[in-house]
């Protein structure tokens, strides 16, 4: 089975979703990511979904779950590069991903992660 690669970049993990997500792939990613966060002691997770064209409620919930799990493991999740159509779909589905931080592109996402991991006060919000 295909797996989505998770790259380590400093004290952050970088996940780039380049293929259409099916449910199994999503659950596998959630599991792998959780393990890697613990393994490397990551402080931030950056998920790039700029290539993702189709989302459903499951995918939305998975993003929320990853954010929640990361928060417990003391890592900040940033989702970057969401397409307009995807954003509209998620809002229409009623998933506003309140626990997830967002940024326009990977660069700004990394900057956001850097800010968040440097100041420990921000981790609690």
């Amino acid at each position, binding site marked *: 089975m295909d797996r989505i690669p998770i790259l380590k970049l400093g004290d952050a993990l970088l996940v780039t979703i380049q293929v259409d997500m099916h449910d199994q792939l999503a659950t596998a990613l959630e599991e792998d990511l959780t393990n890697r966060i613990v393994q490397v002691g990551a402080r931030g997770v950056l998920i790039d979904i700029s290539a993702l064209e189709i989302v459903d409620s499951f995918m939305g919930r998975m993003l929320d779950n990853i954010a929640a799990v990361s928060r417990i493991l003391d890592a900040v999740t940033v989702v970057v590069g969401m397409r*307009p159509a995807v*954003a*509209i779909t*998620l*809002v*229409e589905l009623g998933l506003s*991903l309140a626990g997830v931080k967002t940024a*326009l592109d990977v660069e*700004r996402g990394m900057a956001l992660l850097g800010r968040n991991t440097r100041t420990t006060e921000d981790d609690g919000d």
Partner: protein
Amino acid sequence: MAAIGRQVTSTLLERHESEILGEWLQRLRSEGASQNGRIPESELKAQCKEFLQQLRTAIATGDNDVNGPAYAGVRDLLANISSSRATQGFSPRETALFIFSLKQPLFDMLQRHGKLDEKVVLEANWTIGLLMDSLGLFTMEAFQKTREELIVRQQQEIAELSTPVIKLWDGILALPLIGTLDSQRTQVVMESLLESIVSQGAAMAIIDITGVPTVDTLTAQHLLKTIAAARLMGADCIISGIRPQIAQTMVHLGVELTVVSKATLADAFAVALARQGRTVSKIKVQPAQAGMPRD
């Protein structure tokens, strides 16, 4: 019986075409169908002539069913004429006159030239009457359809016109909303805002609702949806331009906007600049640099 009526009408049209055409045009003119030259005389004449020809062939070949295949040519012509009338701004009455003023010349012609049996004349009268009525109805339908298309197109244009996304600064967008926000407009607004966020790489968007006349729970929900979608893409939104009455109404309704809101667009812009680490300051202009050297 209907066949006889049709046959008589067909012959009538064939033999006295120019005569009918002349009288018809006369009638159209006296009723003001050319509308102070909005349609050139020659064009009106050409339209009438073509219509008579089409009608003749249709009657000769087909039955009385105006919606049948035999009348396809007539219908196309009428649809063209009435839609062009509709776009030229003719009233429904003026458009309908095109068909209904043909009735009288046909009846007259029947009276004058038909050395026919009374019964046959009656039958032909009946056939012509029926035919003209249904063609008239068809004309009105086509007219109405064109008008409706026009209205729909205008609505779309208004929707697009009233939702411009303005770049205030690098990475700061403004969206001045004007008019009531319904779900359809929210969709347009949302799409254009999100597209602009992507294309300009903007991290801040100011939604100005000075031009929104009323804010009820539904409008607020639409606004929140737009803001949520922008946030998902990584852009922050500020709402500005909430008028005093609207602020009161919103509080009374229990509507809560869980975003930064400012009274004016200027305030919101200042906040957006501050978040980018920018500030606006006044510079002292030296007299020598002002361009007008003083003596």
